[in-house]
């Protein structure tokens, strides 16, 4: 192992990795080698410079703080880890996350949280196109706006957007729950606005709470969108088409 990890003096278990001297492969190999009972629970990554796949494939309940912008698939497939990115994230941040927490303190590019099964992804800025595409249980909270085709074919989980949503929101949606506070440029096929009842307000409040912003925004300003359920149910009238 050529990884130069510097244990810091002031905090036991703090690991510092500088990606200007270590490779992403070395960092990820070190992270993958951690067992469930590791005491190396706090990691800081310097000089990410937009490199791809940083901290992808985590499977340990550790905290990682990445100091700068990251490239594609940062913290993809994350399980249990808590990852904070002090900068923008490239395509597919948190793709296929299973559990844990990812906090992007800047903007996220396309396909943030794509196909993810669980955990919480919080984006302080905007997310571009296809945010939460094919989401399968993840909760995503975007404090800015999301681009076109967000939550496309979303199956489960929730997408909460404090700003606006682009064209074709929730196209071909299954059962993911969508809440948007701002304007929606257009709804995709089979996505409709739905009544927001008390149980939905409670659900929304729980997601805002998890993201640490409960009380900062008025829940009454959100509108709820979901599936009309006409696309994914079998219709006997169409039997000859199958």
């Amino acid at each position: 192992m050529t990884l130069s990890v510097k244990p810091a003096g002031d905090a036991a278990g703090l690991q510092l990795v500088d990606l200007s001297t270590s490779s992403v492969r070395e960092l990820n190999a070190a992270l993958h080698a951690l067992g469930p009972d590791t005491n190396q629970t706090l990691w800081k990554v310097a000089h990410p410079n937009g490199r791809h796949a940083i901290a992808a494939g985590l499977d340990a309940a550790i905290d990682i703080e990445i100091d700068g912008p990251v490239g594609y698939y940062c913290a993809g497939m994350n399980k249990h880890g808590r990852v904070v990115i002090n900068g923008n994230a490239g395509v597919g941040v948190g793709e296929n996350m299973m559990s844990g927490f990812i906090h992007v303190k800047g903007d996220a590019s396309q396909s943030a949280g794509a196909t993810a099964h669980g955990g919480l992804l919080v984006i302080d800025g905007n997310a571009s196109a296809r945010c939460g595409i094919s989401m399968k249980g993840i909760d995503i909270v975007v404090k800015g706006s999301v681009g076109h085709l967000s939550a496309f074919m979303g199956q489960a989980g929730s997408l909460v957007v404090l700003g606006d949503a682009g064209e074709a929101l929730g196209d071909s949606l299954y059962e993911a729950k969508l809440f948007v506070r701002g304007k929606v440029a257009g709804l995709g096929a089979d996505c409709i606005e739905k009544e927001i009842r008390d149980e939905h307000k409670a659900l929304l409040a729980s997601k805002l709470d998890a993201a640490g912003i409960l009380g900062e925004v008025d829940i009454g300003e959100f509108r709820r969108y979901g599936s009309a359920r006409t696309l994914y149910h079998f219709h006997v009238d169409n039997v000859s088409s199958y």
Partner: protein
Amino acid sequence: MCGIVGLFIKDPKLEPQLGALLAEMLDVMCDRGPDSAGFAVYGSGKDGTVKLTLRGPAGTDFAAIGAALGHEVAPRDTHAVLTVPAAAEADVRTALKSRFPAIDVISTGARMELYKEVGLPADVAKRFKLETMSGTHAIGHTRMATESAVTTDGAHPFSTGADQCLVHNGSLSNHAGLRRRLEREGLHLATENDSEVAAAYLTYRMREGDTLGEALEHSLGDLDGFYTFVVGTESGFGVLRDPIACKPAVMAETDQYVAFGSEYRALAGLPGIENARVFEPEPAKVYFWDRAA
């Protein structure tokens, strides 16, 4: 896949570093397009003259060609820039065609020079000594070929008008029909490449009176397929992504420059990047910076 980089300098103090900065950006994008590379640099120009970028077989004695034609020539590897009085351009082209048939004129313009070759982009940049070039703006491309063969002719940028060039990441689906239409309008296309059709389309629109910004707006209706374009003119620099935003793009702006990269990695070495406004250009939205404005 392909990689695109572009740099538009606002602060004249940075102009001597244009080539060095672009070379570093191009180097980082090698793994998006290792087949071939090219770049266009908008450098100095003299009133009343045009710069013809020539390309010849390896070992071409460009100095002899310049001497034979009686014009100033600046060779760089397989390319050379021939500076001629604007009024003499047509005669020089005729003379080149008859006396030096192995030489191609790949671009013309008051300030633009264009270089492209097959090979790893980092090596291509070194062969042409990109790092020594200065200027106001430049665009570059690293190619992973999809729609046509890996040849020098198929490398980007494409130039179909004076001081105009285009680089493209994506592929167009209606290029054959559009090519026929443009050829009827009198445009000359040198290759079978779909990206050259996009370049020629913009040249055509600007010939009909469009600004670069207007030409890019029109291309949203007339070009079908997926694309991220970066386009250069003598004074400007434009960016357009298709409405689906198939291909990646990220931009950074400071008081000193506007920069474009297919990925943030390409911008990570620019001066002051940590305080730049970094943003993803929106789909179907024309972005345009002009020195005259």
